[in-house]
């Protein structure tokens, strides 16, 4: 039932609003609202119960193993959440004077320094509000760099065809044409093809490493050389940073600019699809173009003070990406996480996420599932393909995924990357114990058996969720995006 459908005219949560006051007479009548907004009318306990019950219709990390590939669904520490909601942080106005902001600014400054170290970059700006915005900032900086050198012929961004959809969408938002680079059967970029494609028209290359194929790009140094020799810059999509945290730094691989998804690698909550944070790191060449604001530190009369660096400090900046400084509350959570983890903890993230993925991959193989890239190491994730099951049993990767929900596991990422048929991208993360991984494998074996014995049953899954499979075609054809009262339905 919708909150609207339990609404009763005149019902209120009285204690939540100020005593009713009049609208000031100074506001002209013509500018006032004529008809009361159609919002729910209900009581406080009714609201609490409604949304508490809705929350129970969700899978989440706190309730289920959630091995969604490329999303890094690791444990989100409660301590970080509590810290970010401390009154001094939650109540700080974004435009508060610097003298009232030293606590917050010191956290941001130190987070910048930590992120520089773990990525091998020379500068960090925390302001992008999501990975996609970090990508946007990064490509906009690449463009600013070329333009500052009067190099106007560079109109293309090269992107491996296994890349996340945001990469090409971002390149276009920054005014570039996209050229796709093929990926070989072993998951590596086709270096020979890249050589053909790179040239004076190349502004840069965007890639993820480990790639979306779940393998480490072994020819990364050669790729960097080819792009740099052609005069382009290298963009690192930080989606898979968790795999290599503390093991390899994008800066050392030759990347010039990158974003980090703090909602993945730094354990901030995904929140049902946001908010995230997508800080960017840059090498020497792009330092002058970083988006503002950035936090700087000064030594004033022997005392360390922090202040905002703005357009005056960074005159060639690509500018601002949001009204203030991005998702500050997410950044505080990431800072807390980084401090608790510390140096040693960072190294272990890459190690144990990789250990868990390789263990699961081996177990999958032993159970008879087909690996997309056999013979390769898994990184923090790996791909299996269910194309045999689809062909021989008529049970697709989606059917397997839906049935998995009945076993109490969230499905891995399905049908991505697009170039592997009937695929699952599986990412366990380092915070899962091996017993959870074993349970998942047992469920898969069991579904395989069900698919062989009773394919129709599997194709009808799920059976235990609040709803069965939904009619997406109806949803798109007969758009129902907003509740309307029965009387006004056309």
């Amino acid at each position, binding site marked *: 039932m919708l909150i609207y459908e339990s609404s009763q005219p005149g019902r209120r949560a009285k204690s939540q609003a100020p005593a009713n006051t009049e609208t000031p007479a100074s506001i002209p009548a013509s500018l006032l609202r004529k008809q009361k907004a159609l*919002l729910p009318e209900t009581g406080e306990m009714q609201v609490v119960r409604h949304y508490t019950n809705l929350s129970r219709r969700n899978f989440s990390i*706190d309730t289920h193993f959630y091995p969604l590939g490329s999303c890094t669904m690791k444990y989100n520490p409660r301590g970080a959440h509590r810290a970010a909601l401390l009154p001094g942080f939650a109540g700080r*106005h974004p435009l508060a004077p610097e003298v009232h902001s030293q606590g917050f600014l010191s956290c941001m400054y130190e987070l910048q320094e930590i992120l520089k170290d773990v990525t091998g970059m020379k500068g960090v700006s925390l302001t992008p509000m999501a990975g996609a915005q970090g990508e946007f900032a990064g490509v906009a900086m690449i463009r600013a760099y070329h333009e500052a050198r009067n190099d106007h012929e560079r109109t293309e961004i090269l992107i491996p065809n296994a890349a996340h*959809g945001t990469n090409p969408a971002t390149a276009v938002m920054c005014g570039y044409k996209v050229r796709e680079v093929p990926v070989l059967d072993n998951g590596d970029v086709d270096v020979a093809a890249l050589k053909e494609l790179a040239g004076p028209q190349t502004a840069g290359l965007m890639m993820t490493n480990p790639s979306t194929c779940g393998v480490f790009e072994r020819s990364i140094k050669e790729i960097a050389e080819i792009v740099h020799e052609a005069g382009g810059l290298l963009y690192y999509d930080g989606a898979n940073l968790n795999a290599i945290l503390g093991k390899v730094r994008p800066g050392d691989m030759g990347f010039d600019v990158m974003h980090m998804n703090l909602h993945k690698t730094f354990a901030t909550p995904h929140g049902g699809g946001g908010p995230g944070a997508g800080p960017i790191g840059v090498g020497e060449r792009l330092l002058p173009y970083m988006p503002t604001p950035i936090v700087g530190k000064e030594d004033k009369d022997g005392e360390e003070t922090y202040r905002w660096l703005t357009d005056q400090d960074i005159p060639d900046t690509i500018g601002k990406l949001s009204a203030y400084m991005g998702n500050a509350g997410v950044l505080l959570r990431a800072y807390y996480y980084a401090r608790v*983890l*510390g140096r040693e903890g960072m190294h272990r993230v890459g190690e144990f996420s990789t250990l868990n993925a390789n263990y699961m991959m081996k177990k999958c193989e032993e159970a008879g599932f087909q690996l997309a890239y056999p013979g390769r190491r898994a990184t923090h994730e790996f791909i299996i393909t269910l194309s045999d099951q689809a062909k021989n049993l008529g049970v697709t990767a989606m059917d397997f995924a839906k049935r998995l929900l009945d076993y109490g596991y969230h499905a891995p990422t399905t049908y991505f990357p697009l170039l592997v048929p009937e695929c699952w991208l599986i990412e366990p993360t380092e915070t899962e114990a091996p017993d959870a991984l074993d349970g998942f494998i047992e469920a898969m074996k069991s579904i395989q058996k069900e698919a062989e014995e009773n394919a129709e049953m599997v194709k009808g899954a799920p059976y235990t969720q609040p709803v069965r499979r939904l009619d997406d075609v109806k949803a798109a054809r007969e758009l129902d995006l907003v509740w309307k009262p029965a009387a006004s339905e056309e």
Partner: protein
Amino acid sequence: MPYIPHTDADIQAMLETIGVDSIDDLFDEIPADILSQPLSQVPEGISEMEASRLMADRAAADSNVACFIGAGAYEHHIPAAVWEIVGRGEFMTAYTPYQAEASQGTLQVIYEYQSMMAHLNAMDVSNASLYDGGSALAEAVLMAIRANRKSKSKKVLIPTSVNPLYRSATHGIVENQGISIEEVAFCSDMGTTPLSALEHYAGQDYAALVIQQPNFFGCLEDVHALTDWAHANKMLVIAVVNPTSLAILAPPGDWGEAGADISVGEGQPLGIPLSSGGPYFGFMCCKQGIVRQMPGRIIGRTVDLEGKEGFTLTLQAREQHIRRSKATSNICTNQGLAMTAATIYTSLLGADGLAAVANASATNTQTLVAALTEIDGVETVFAAPYFHEVVIRVPGNATDVLAKLAERRVQGGFDVSTAYAGMDDAILVCATETKNAADIQSYKVALADVLSA
């Protein structure tokens, strides 16, 4: 090991299963010369107790201030229930609802959110939210250029009375796509954008006119006349609105003869803490006819194979994970958690409660203005009626005055000179429903003190 549950026995057993001797062996595909050295700038790890102490100390350093700043982010009372529920792991630690059957909670909340936003704005449809108000305006500009069938223009008109922080974010986001933004001056007496300032653009080809209500100065624009003018000149109207104000002010769908075409704004006033500027969320509503040009996630109500009601992502053909380089935007998330908070907040307040918040804020700001202007030399700058923010003029330099107020733990308002040349003595002040008579009196005493020093 923080957050890693493996025992030594686990590790040994797992390595044996994999068939390697050590965890390091799993990294043998990485060229050895690029493997990391130990990190040097990351401090040693600390316990939860130590981290909590550290954060509490830093937060405390920024506390105990009286905030009279608005400028797009407003201190409102947030019912305790809002973040208690939002903080439930089932909402907070879920991901994008790609597996609809296992995400009905999140999906239904978004559907309810879309309904509330559409009704509050008196618009046909809403998306599931964007990053914040500033980036929502940028996305609205891009959308208007795609959606305006009567115009081939890649130019948009934006009055300078629109929030300068939104204008700079918009500029940064759209400029690489060959889009130009033409700024329209406001009337320096009234603080609003008069039709006379637009006449110069009549008959010219622009994709859209942006109208903010209340505008950055808190002043109320003649939204009906501006909307009709834009439509008569074949421009779409992008409304930028404060959601609290919509409980009492004419909603964008009711502006002029035909209503605004796209409505965006900052969702923060609906139950989101100030939190240094984020995470907030941007809302976006539009007319039915242009819904396929809308960026961001959209949820639809449908049925399952047994005919039971359910909710699912829809119109995904607009989005980056399907359309890649031809998507309406590169955005792939919404601000799910902040949007969930707003949905619960709006349910708790209802239309009457929200109107009470709006009225109390408007009234308190009037009280504040009356108090401050009793001080010699302090006066209001603009003559137009206002909602809950006002530009005041102080004798002397606003930056200096604000710095001295800060020494007294008063955040006196937004320094208008940082965004508008020639307004060196102007401060934008705001008193929401959270301020009482004593708070307002303290501000007055502090300001009088600063000015007499």
